[in-house]
């Protein structure tokens, strides 16, 4: 196009770890965490780690839509609960165990995300946020009135008596499953962020009209993001019935999931895969510490206070603080 011939300028782009290397590193970290937890071996360590890890998956999943495209989804609890109830429904109907139920939850969550996207992605800003909030209310009402999965009384899910090898307790197995899910979620988020898809999502987040003018099919990309995000949020919720062996709508659709899913990426930083990971580990550890030392009733207050502090002092999250100093 241009007839100018200027000397080639070398890009001083930072060296990036390849996708394959990152997946291998994630797998190695996951293995180390599983071994470390196995070394500690206490039921509480398993429980606390599971609590933290489910938020790592949820926050990372939320960020794929909320952070990468800027579409704030207030319905995270709906997707999380969909995953949890997919486990109950498919477990009861087909006698499936936890691992196949996680797969089914991903399919149902992805389909729900796609459907929600088709109906709502022409909305923007507050209207989109309200639409996703309504989704949560609608789904909770459906589950409350669906007696097959326990309705408002809730449902009991018995843990299998046989513990998969090489784990000594079912809690250890459950925790290991969440370690793998968390590692996979982070690796998926990073792969998306550094790919062509991530570039398109970042463009549409900044300016949809300009992105369209640059050839980006914004609606298609948003649907992809909603589907992946929905599938992963449902996966985060799929092990929930096995955690306490009981699930009921009020807790599965609880405000804590919706608030934490948004607060954790915002605190960590929404522009990078590392943000939700840092935010989820910090905030859920803080909540877990508060639960055992003070009271579980104050959890959401802690989230609120930390969120207000970060929104005022570090609007781009912890990652933004580090990037700002470079």
């Amino acid at each position, binding site marked *: 196009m241009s007839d100018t011939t200027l000397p080639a300028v070398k890009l001083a782009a930072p060296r990036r770890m390849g996708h394959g290397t990152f997946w291998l590193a994630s797998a190695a970290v996951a293995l180390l965490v599983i071994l470390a937890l196995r070394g500690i071996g206490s039921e509480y360590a398993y429980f606390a780690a599971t609590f933290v890890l489910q938020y790592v998956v949820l926050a990372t999943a939320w960020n794929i839509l909320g952070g990468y495209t800027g579409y704030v989804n207030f319905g995270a609890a709906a997707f999380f609960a969909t995953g949890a109830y997919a486990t109950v429904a498919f477990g009861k109907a087909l006698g499936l165990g936890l691992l196949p139920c996680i797969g089914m939850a991903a399919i149902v969550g992805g389909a729900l995300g796609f459907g929600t996207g088709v109906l709502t992605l022409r909305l923007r800003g507050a209207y989109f946020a309200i639409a996703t909030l309504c989704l949560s209310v609608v789904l909770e009402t459906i589950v409350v009135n669906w007696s097959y999965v326990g309705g408002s009384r809730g449902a009991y899910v018995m843990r299998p008596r046989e513990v998969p090898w090489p784990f000594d307790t079912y809690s250890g197995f459950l925790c290991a499953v969440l370690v793998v899910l968390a590692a996979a979620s982070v690796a998926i988020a990073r792969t998306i962020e550094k790919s062509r898809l991530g570039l398109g999502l970042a463009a549409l987040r900044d300016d949809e009209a300009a992105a369209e*003018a640059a050839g980006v099919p914004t609606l298609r990309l948003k649907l992809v993001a909603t589907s992946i995000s929905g599938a992963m949020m449902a996966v985060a919720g799929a092990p929930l019935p096995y955690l306490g062996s009981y699930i009921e709508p009020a807790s599965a659709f609880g405000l804590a999931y919706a608030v934490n899913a948004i607060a954790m990426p915002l605190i960590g930083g929404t522009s990078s895969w590392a943000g939700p990971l840092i935010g989820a580990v910090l905030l859920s550890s803080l909540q877990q510490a508060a639960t055992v030392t003070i009271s579980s009733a104050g959890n959401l207050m802690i989230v609120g206070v930390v969120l207000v502090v970060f929104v005022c002092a570090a609007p781009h999250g912890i990652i933004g603080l580090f990037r700002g100093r470079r």
Partner: protein
Amino acid sequence: MTEIVLRAEGVGKRFGGFTALSGIDLEVRAGERLGLIGPNGSGKSTFTNCLAGAFPSHDGGFTFKGQKLAGLKSHERARRGLARTFQLPRPFRGLSVIDNIRVPLAYAGRDAATDERAMECLESVELAAKANRMPKELTQVELRRLELARATALKPELLIADEAMAGLSNTEVDQILALLFRLNAGGTTIIMIEHVMRAVTEFSQRLAVLVAGRKVADGDPRAVLSMPEVEEAYLGR
């Protein structure tokens, strides 16, 4: 006879009860430099938005390279080689300068999506040295150049430069003009929408004038500018 690259036939656009465009007919030949002028509110940007697919037109339609554009979204028109810049620069502020260029290279599929090609686009607008900077670090004229570089990354056959020189100094206007001349010399047809009359007269081979959503003149720039209807539109009776 040079091929007609764009044909607008009876294009009309209404916003509620307000008619922004009415019965616009326009032909643009391949490699041509067309100036599109008119007072504020005359419908120039609405015409651009209808052509680029940002707004649907209510009447008439466009034919680009012999194909009807009706029903095609903005990104589909961009992929066919129809590029535009925006009146106010709209960079992707969360992406570096070179990533701003990587977006059209990666998505339009009209050129190799390589770093080398991205750097070539930046070199053509003399922004290569700022490839790793963020848009907030660029000056106004550099942002305009980034807009042009992002459009050229589409390897366009038709570029609509919507007020690419608004608010720039004389020297900066000359820089942007030189860029547009260079693009045109490379084979890109250009529609320049501009209020800087010096630039319009210097650049355009043909001038079309919109007034209150209607085309009132189309022809040789000097002849068009001396037409009573055009003088009246700009200076009043």
